[in-house]
């Protein structure tokens, strides 16, 4: 009796295993499922809404084109509410679904450490929207890829901007979170390589600071004493415009340079007239119609802009660009798997991505580079008359 029961259980297990091993290789025309782990509620809700809209729009387009060699794409979108625990739970849930070869998201830096660790342990590709940071790069993880421009290339691009503008001494006012601090450090490193004098302020600011006046009052004497040519706000989100606004209110007229996080419409709306003349390097989707005629990115960017305006009544921004690039990178890698889509095959295909042209530029992944983009994929931007204007040097 006991033996019989054991046999039944064993048989069931074996048949389950058999079923699983069968389902590993999708049958002809069966969909490829992509897990999407996004901050759809919480402070990033409005930003991730754009991501979701673009993902849905692009998947519909891919499926209308016949999918990936006859296999349609299918999205499973889950909301992590900008919560570490929920992001981890969703990631784990996706890893247990053997039909999912790749998980997209999370959006924000504080969550990527967790999902990357799970991806590494379970052996599933994780494409993260936010830039990598020195901490996660140091781990040399095999299964995680980042979409956005890394702190390294942003800092290199900004050093170029300072050289072109003839700035000699630059004061950096960093945020107190890892990405803002590493942007400041890399900028100092690359700037000093090129002979610039870079001072990183001891004062920092928090992402929740609504008034930077006190910090700026302390920085004002340094600006005057060191004859600072430019003030670098190494930050993202609302603190950027707040810093510029507070500076101008204190009568500091030093030119301001910023990060690629300044390339969003709401930044100009928050800072108002104070934002005039702020310069930074950013992704190409910020200025779709000011790109060079011969730029291979231009037709992709303008096409996406038109389709977004038509469907959602809102034009393209860097976020929409990231979403577009992520889904088409997946499409491209799946296609190169030639029907043999397993998690390992997909990862290898994605890592082999070379010269892939998308909204933000040309992606090249390699075993040593999981960030994809390069300095050449960014453009210089100046805020003029409340609009983004491309600068060429």
């Amino acid at each position, binding site marked *: 009796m006991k033996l019989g029961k054991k046999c039944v259980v064993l048989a069931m297990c074996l048949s389950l295993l058999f079923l699983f091993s069968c389902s590993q290789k999708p049958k002809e025309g069966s969909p490829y499922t992509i897990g999407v782990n996004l901050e759809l*509620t*919480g*402070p*990033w*809700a*409005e*930003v991730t809404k754009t991501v979701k809209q673009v993902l849905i729009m692009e998947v519909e387009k891919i499926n209308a084109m016949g999918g990936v060699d006859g296999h349609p794409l299918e999205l499973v979108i889950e909301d992590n509410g900008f919560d570490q625990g929920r992001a981890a739970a969703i990631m784990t849930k996706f890893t247990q679904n053997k039909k999912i070869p790749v998980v997209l998201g999370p959006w924000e830096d504080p969550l990527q450490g967790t999902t990357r660790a799970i991806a590494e342990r379970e052996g599933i590709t994780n494409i993260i929207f936010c830039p990598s940071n020195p901490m996660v790069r140091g781990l040399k993880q095999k299964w995680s890829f980042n979409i956005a421009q890394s702190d390294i290339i942003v800092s290199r691009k900004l050093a170029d901007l300072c050289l072109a503008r003839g700035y000699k001494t630059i004061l950096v006012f960093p945020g*107190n979170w890892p990405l803002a601090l590493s942007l400041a450090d890399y900028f100092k490193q690359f700037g000093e390589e090129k002979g610039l004098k870079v001072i990183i302020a*001891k*004062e*920092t*600011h*928090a992402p*929740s*600071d*609504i*008034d930077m*006046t*006190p*910090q700026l*009052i*302390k920085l004002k*004497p340094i600006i005057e004493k060191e004859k600072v040519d430019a003030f670098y706000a190494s930050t993202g*989100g*609302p603190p950027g*415009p*707040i810093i510029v*606004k507070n500076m*101008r*209110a*204190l*009568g500091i007229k030093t030119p301001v340079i910023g990060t690629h996080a300044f390339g969003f419409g*709401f930044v100009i*709306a*928050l*800072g*108002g*007239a*104070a934002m005039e003349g702020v310069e930074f390097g950013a992704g190409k989707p910020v200025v779709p119609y000011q790109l060079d005629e011969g730029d291979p990115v231009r037709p992709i960017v303008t096409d996406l802009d038109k389709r977004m305006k038509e469907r959602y009544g809102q034009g393209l921004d860097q976020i929409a660009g990231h979403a577009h690039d992520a889904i088409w990178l997946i499409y491209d890698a799946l296609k190169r798997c030639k029907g043999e889509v397993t998690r390992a095959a997909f990862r290898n295909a994605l890592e082999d991505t070379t010269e892939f042209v998308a909204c933000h530029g040309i992606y090249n992944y390699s075993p040593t580079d999981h960030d994809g983009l390069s300095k050449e994929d960014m453009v210089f931007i100046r805020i003029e008359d409340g609009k983004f204007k491309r600068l060429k040097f």
Partner: protein
Amino acid sequence: MNPWIHIPQLLAAGITMGAIYALVALGFVIIVRASQILNFAQGEFVMLGGVVTFFFITGAGLPYPLAALAAVLAVIVIGFLLHLLVVYPLRKASVLILIMATVGASIVISNTSALLFGTLPKALPPFSGDLPLELGGIRIVPQNLWVLGATFLLFFVLYFLSHRTLVGKAMEASSTDPLGADLSGIARNFMVFLAFGVSAGVGAIAGVLVTPIFYTSYNAGTLLGLKGFIAAVVGGWGKNSGAVLGGFVLGVVESTSIAFIPAGYKDAVAFVVLLLILYFRPKGILGSPYIDSRRW
């Protein structure tokens, strides 16, 4: 570097912050004076003042002053609704339960705002330009003067309301001596209802005034509410004058502390001030009608 050279400008910044904290603190005190309820949704009224004005300007196309007025009225209605839907049904419960209910209401309000108006931060243009005025080496943005003026104006209006009108006195009576108020024929629940409206109005005015200086978003109310609460406690729980004084003390201490310590500790300073006051003078600087310091 000599830290004292920053003091005048930091003082100017601190007075502005103080005026903002004072406005939020006044909102807390109005409700406490009528019902002893601590309304943790107070910060949300401030947030709504800014967010709803923004919506009326961009969504409904109203001119700025009209939009601001409409927003204040809308928030007053929300204040009334908060009383009718949350506080009134729980009128027989203990004050502690009511306080928890207001915490719940604040979460509902801020998330509803996120759903309706989005999560991106929103800014309003300043009332009268953003060219800073220079006074003896100190720079002040005109909007700061608006905030300062409004704080004192509201303080005097509230003083008049509570000391010179029957309604104001009835409001106060229903809190200090509920039984006595009942015996004198004061409709206590109606007084609390009115207090929620006035408090929401003051909060919304604060929101309209401060949004041009900073910005507002669906979750901006929490920290402002907390700071306003600290200001009200520091100054003297339950006193209008205490709320205003507490606001300025908090703002100035917070701001000037930066001359000596890194700005990262700015928010902690507020709580240190609160602890020190509670430790050495639990009834606040001006004393509180509700806290008997002999009990400590």
